[in-house]
Structures are given as C-alpha cells and as structure tokens.
C-alpha cells in the first residue's frame, strides 16, 4: 500500500463503510417504500501479464514475465428518492511495484437533475466525482470499455492516475439532445485528491506534506457515441499546496508555501461506424512549481514552468461481435528549444487484438514498440546517463465482469 495521503485514506475508508451501509440497507428496504429504488451493483476484475525489454513498464517486467498488474472494481448505485441518485465505486489496482497494492474509493457522489424535459437536462453532482477529462478518463479502469490493455499514455498517464482521476467537489452539468446527437457541458469545482508519490515524481520535488488546493474542470462535447462524429474539449487545472526542503549550496531551505499546478487542454475527435472507429486526442499540457523562498537567491528561480504536447491517433476494426483489433500511434514531447532528452519524449507504436467469448469474459493481447522514457515510472526504473531509448513490451490480459 502506498504510504501517501493517510488522512485521505481514512476518509475513503469511512466513505466506503458509510456508503456501503446506505446501499445495502437501501436494497433491503427498497420494496417497502419509494426510497432506494432500482439499486444495482456491478464488478470487474482483470489480470495482466507483461514482458518488456530494458525497462519496467507498469510492473517488474524488465526481461521477465510479470503478473504484477491487476485491477478490480466494485460499484453500486441507487435511486435514493425520485430523481436523486447515488453512485459509488471502490477500486483496487496495482500498476507499479513501488506503489504496491492500492485500494481506494474512486468516486461516491449524489446526482440530481433539477430541470429535465424530453431533450434538455440541467443538474448537479456533489461528492467525490470522476474528472471527465478527454473522451475516456471516466471509464479508463474498466477493461471492457477500453480499446487496449493500457490507455494511450501520452494523454491518460498512469503515472498520475490517482491524482487526475477524481476529486471532491461540486459539478454542474447540462445537455440538449438533437435526435441521437448530444450537446453537453459541465463545470466541476473541486479539491484535488493528492497522491504524494505521483505529484513528487512529476514535479521532481521531495515534498514533506502535499495537499490538494483547488481545481477547475470545464468540458464541452457534441456528437454520438457510436454513430458518426463526436468531439469534445476539456480544460482541467488541479492545484496543490506543498512543503519542500531544498539544498541550496551548503544550506537547506525549507518552504511551507510552495505550490504545484498542472493545466491540461484536451481536444478530442472520434468517428464511429458500424465496424470501425478512428480516435484522435490532442493534449496541450503546462505544469509549474512555485517555491517563493528561492525568489531572492542568485542562480535560482521561484517558478519553474514546463510544457508538453501530446496526441494519439488510433484505428479500431471490429471483425465480428467477438473479435476486434486496433493500431495506435501515441506521442508526447516536452516543449523545449534544445534537443529532447529521452525522458522527455514518448513515441509508442502499439497494436493488439481482443476476443470476447461471452458477455463477461474478455481476452486481450498487444505489442508496444517505444522510443522514449517519458511515461516510465522513475520509482520502478534506475535510469542511467546512457540508456537506450528504444524498447518493446508485450502484454496479455484476461478480464471478467459481473
């Protein structure tokens, strides 16, 4: 279990127990009143085997077959009363030896549509809510809703999955349906969930205390999910407060008012036909650390800003109801004038296939040829000065859902 954010973990455990109680008592009393109607539960589990050359990729897979990576989710939902609904999911997963087995309350929120007609809906959600970043963040952990075993790492980084996945706050949403096309918009004000392991790694800091400060997510989208074009634009900016100590010459400076933020703008396009789909998503990513104590120290600057541009293009073909295959080019580059370092780029050509023998079972295999190290976990790999940027990975997955 990761050692970080113990306070948050306690809140999650309390949430889990409380909401599980609500849901199960709800299911028990559902027939006797108009409270807790249409209660449902779903679950899934997956196990992945990974073999990679040269580096550990989402597991201890360097030149060996690793079975480290697993995911399991349990979710429940109920109509509390009339239009008020409640949904919650607990997710267990392991994608890194350093982070270990992770169990967390992914989301737990109430949703209420306060205005609803045949074509229009306006509503509000309150609680721990999934960040609807890009086309696929909301359902990234469910194997049956993904295209491949791993999400395109350029846009949906597994390095910061916990910090970007959900947040505690309030979201206003609205949509209008034009036949089977939907125009929707949402704005989400929240306090980010902070994972010290993840943020310290991307910000290259060693924080003694990390806390989510505030975040804003805005998204607008239009189209149909399975016929024709759909498009969306997402703006997401989570901010964190952090305490750091830094060696400056012979001294160590301690700063308890440092901050980190990440600003992402994702433009997404997808075209779906009966037996094929093409998806393109483009990310403009800015991140900044601010350590005010360094402002007046010669040779140092308080603010350090980085930029990254990333995109992926993916084609999917459905041979039949059971068989499909995909091919994807996934690219990310740090935005700098000088030559890119290996750990600032990620060019991944990957392809794979899936077989669904029944509604519940899913089998997948895929292959990655990668140039770059930007999305490898530093905590799982000991990088040297002269590392080889070219490496490969083969992955196999079996998943089951209830």
């Amino acid at each position, binding site marked *: 279990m990761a050692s970080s954010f113990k306070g948050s973990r306690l809140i999650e455990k309390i949430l889990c127990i409380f909401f599980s109680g609500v849901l199960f008592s709800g299911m028990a009393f559902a027939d006797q009143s108009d409270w807790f109607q*249409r209660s*449902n539960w*779903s679950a899934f589990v997956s196990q992945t085997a990974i073999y990679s050359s040269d580096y550990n990729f989402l597991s201890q897979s360097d030149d060996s077959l690793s079975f480290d990576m697993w995911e399991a*989710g349990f*979710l429940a*939902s109920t109509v509390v009363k009339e239009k008020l609904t409640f*949904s*919650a*999911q607990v997710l267990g997963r392991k994608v890194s030896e350093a982070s270990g087995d992770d169990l967390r309350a992914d*989301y737990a*929120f109430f*949703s209420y549509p306060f205005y*609803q*007609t*045949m074509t229009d809906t306006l509503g509000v959600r309150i609680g721990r*809510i*999934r960040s*609807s970043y890009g086309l696929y963040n*909301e*359902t990234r*952990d*469910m194997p*049956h*809703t993904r295209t491949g075993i791993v999400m395109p790492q350029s846009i949906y980084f597994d390095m910061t999955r916990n910090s970007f996945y959900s947040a505690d706050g309030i979201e206003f949403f609205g949509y209008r*349906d034009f*036949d*089977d096309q*939907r125009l929707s918009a949402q704005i989400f004000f929240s306090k980010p969930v902070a994972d010290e392991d993840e943020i310290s790694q991307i910000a290259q800091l060693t924080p003694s205390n990390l806390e989510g400060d505030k975040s804003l997510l805005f998204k607008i989208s239009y189209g*149909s*999910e*399975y*016929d024709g074009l759909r498009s969306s634009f997402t703006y997401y900016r989570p901010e964190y407060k952090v305490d750091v100590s830094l060696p400056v010459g012979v001294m160590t400076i301690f700063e308890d008012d440092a901050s980190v933020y990440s600003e992402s703008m994702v433009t997404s396009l997808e075209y*779906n036909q*009966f*037996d094929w789909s093409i998806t393109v998503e483009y990310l403009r990513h800015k991140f900044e650390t601010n350590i005010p104590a360094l402002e007046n120290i010669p040779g140092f600057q308080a603010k350090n800003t980085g930029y990254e541009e990333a995109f992926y293009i993916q084609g999917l073909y*459905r041979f039949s*109801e059971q068989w499909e295959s995909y091919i994807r080019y996934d690219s990310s580059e740090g935005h700098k004038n000088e030559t890119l370092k290996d750990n600032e780029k990620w060019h991944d050509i990957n392809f794979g296939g899936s077989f*669904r023998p*029944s*509604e519940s079972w899913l089998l997948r295999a895929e292959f990655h040829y990668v140039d770059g190290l930007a999305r490898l976990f530093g905590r799982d790999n000991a990088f040297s000065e002269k590392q080889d940027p070219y490496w490969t990975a083969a992955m196999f997955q079996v998943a089951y*859902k209830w």
Partner: protein
Amino acid sequence: MTKLKRIFLITVFVLGSQLSMTSFAATLKVIANASVEESELKLKDLRSIYTMKKSIWSNGDRISVFVLSGDNATHKDFCRSLLKVFPRQLESVWYRLVYSGTGEKPVSVSSEEEMVKRVSNTPGAIGYIRSESLHEETKVISIK
C-alpha cells in the same frame, strides 16, 4: 464450373441471404407498455432510448428500457438489423454510463416471454420481441 454458373450461384446466394435477413428483421417488433402515448418512433429516437440518452416520454413518464441478454439471437438481430450497431458497442455505451456513475444500463431479461410480461407490468416500458405473443397491456411501436 463455368464463370457464368459461378456468377449465378453467387447472385442466388447473396439475394437469398438478403431475403432471409429481411424476413428475419421484419418479424422484429418494438413493444411498449400501453401507458406510452407514442405509437411510432424515429429510428434516431429508438437509438437515443437504447443508448440511455432519452429518459422520458413526451408525457413526462420515465422510460424503462428492457433488453434480452447479450448472447440472445433476438437481441443480436435487434442491435444489428435495427440499431445498426454491434451488441458489444451498445454494451460499451451502457458500461461507460454505469462505470462513470452517471447513468443506468437497461434491465436485462432472460426470455421473450419475460420481456412481454415485464413490459406489460411496467408503466413507460419499452422492449422488443420476435414472437407474436403480445399481452393486452402492451402495444407495438412502429419505427420510421
């Protein structure tokens, strides 16, 4: 086999398979509870209902959506012939709603008999069958 004969056989096969698919699809019926005011729906509206986007009827009643299991032949035919989608694609749309906590999937029933029974007992319900056995509390919805 001569070229002419081969072309004839291929034509017969293609026409035959098209005819059999047409007659197979033609027996599919979209049914609704008698409380539903609509007697016809556009195909786009039916798709919106089965992707769980459209959730209320014109009279304000909630739409209760019923489906047969994913491996049922009638369900496969309904998806492919009428909605023009693979059943797995439709499932993916439902699971995106369910696993994001923002919506529900349809109620799954195990047989056409149960489908007729549940639709007839549930105000605002919609479903589909291939059999002729309608209940008096259900009606057929024509698709434009």
